[in-house]
């Protein structure tokens, strides 16, 4: 079947098998391999992307369901000049990643969360990231990074 999906601002039309998952479409058809696959059960959140601005697990969305929708992946987070998004910067500054495999999904989940909770408490950040698993960081620095990214710009650095 044919789908037209706008990914990181770029619409493209492709033929895909009906069973193609959004994450497979992004990785294999669009060549955007930043979005990772970590499980089969909608548990780990490694594949999180934004669909119409909200976090979704792209392993549990068919490419067909994303037809005519807008997707933002980790590759779409930096500014055009390559400057990292404040959330990406905060992850580096607070050492919120180690192996980096969960990181794209974690950043996208955080982006959606901060959209919905601009000034969260630590407890809210922890709840808000309940759908994303990380095996390296123990979450301590991820939580610090998200809290920092939520602060007013002058407080981030």
């Amino acid at each position, binding site marked *: 079947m044919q789908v037209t999906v706008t990914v990181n601002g770029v619409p493209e039309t492709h033929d895909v098998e*009906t*069973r193609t*998952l959004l994450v497979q479409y992004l990785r294999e058809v669009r060549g955007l391999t930043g979005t990772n696959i970590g499980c089969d*059960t*909608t548990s780990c959140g490694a594949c999180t992307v934004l669909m119409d601005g909200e976090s979704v697990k792209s392993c549990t*969305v068919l490419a067909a369901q994303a037809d005519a929708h807008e997707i933002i992946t980790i590759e779409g987070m930096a500014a055009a000049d390559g400057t990292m998004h404040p959330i990406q910067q905060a992850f580096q500054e607070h050492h919120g990643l180690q192996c980096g495999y969960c990181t794209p999904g974690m950043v996208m989940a955080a982006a959606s969360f901060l959209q*919905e909770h601009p000034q969260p408490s630590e407890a809210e950040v922890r709840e808000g990231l*309940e759908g994303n698993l990380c095996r390296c960081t123990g979450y301590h620095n991820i939580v610090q990074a998200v809290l920092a990214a939520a602060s007013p710009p002058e407080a981030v650095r």
Partner: protein
Amino acid sequence: MIPASFEYRRAGSVDEALALLRQDPDGTKLLAGGHSLLPLMKLRLATPGVLVDVGRIGGLSYVRDAGDHVAIGALTRHRDLETSDVARSEVPLLAHVAGQVGDPQVRHRGTIGGSLAHGDPASDLPAAVLALGGTLVVQGPGGTREVPVDGFFLGFLETALGPDEMLTEIRVRKGAAGWGFQKFNRRAQDWAIVGVAAVVGSDPRVALVNMGSTTVRARGVEEALAAGASPADAAARAAEGLDPPSDLNASTEYRQHLVTVLVRRALEGATTGRG
């Protein structure tokens, strides 16, 4: 994990969805948010020949104040229900529970209609709807019928929905004097080991998550409450007549204990207005 192949059809309206369903009711599944169905398909535990995507049908995502009840479109996502002003003021239990389902990503995709139609006794929203009491609006080849929620959940993953029918609206009663919800799990993102949705007032109703093959009411608790029992005394009857499952997270015996604690806490929360 890759689902087995299937034919994908997109319905533009309820009538179109019903027409597609009619072609092969048993080999066809309706796809809304997909968060109950797609995981099963990826594990190849479900292999429908045809998927009818109803997610784009317009006009089925709403939360409306309809006088004595609140009407919720079947395609209303958990996130929209959680943040709906109408739901928060008129049926706060439902808004609260919608915010407890799965995780944020799941709540951005999953729909109340999909959750109820799936009929999983471990799901939260069926218990909330059962506790509130109400009616499910179902459309099928013979037109529209209304199914009281008390007769909707028939067995494990089995509801009163016929294979050629579609759930279109959920109506829940307004005006509960108080409500409580308790969800006990080991990780926040997980299904409840046991959950309790309780509504108190003139017609107290208590519904339980994961305490049997369907979402069930705690009839003994309700009787006791109606007779004026304290939350603690009423809660002591929470496991009456129930044979909850035994699994990795909890034995039957532990669930029978846990439900009495959680019902008591839900009722205490409801009566003190803390939710």
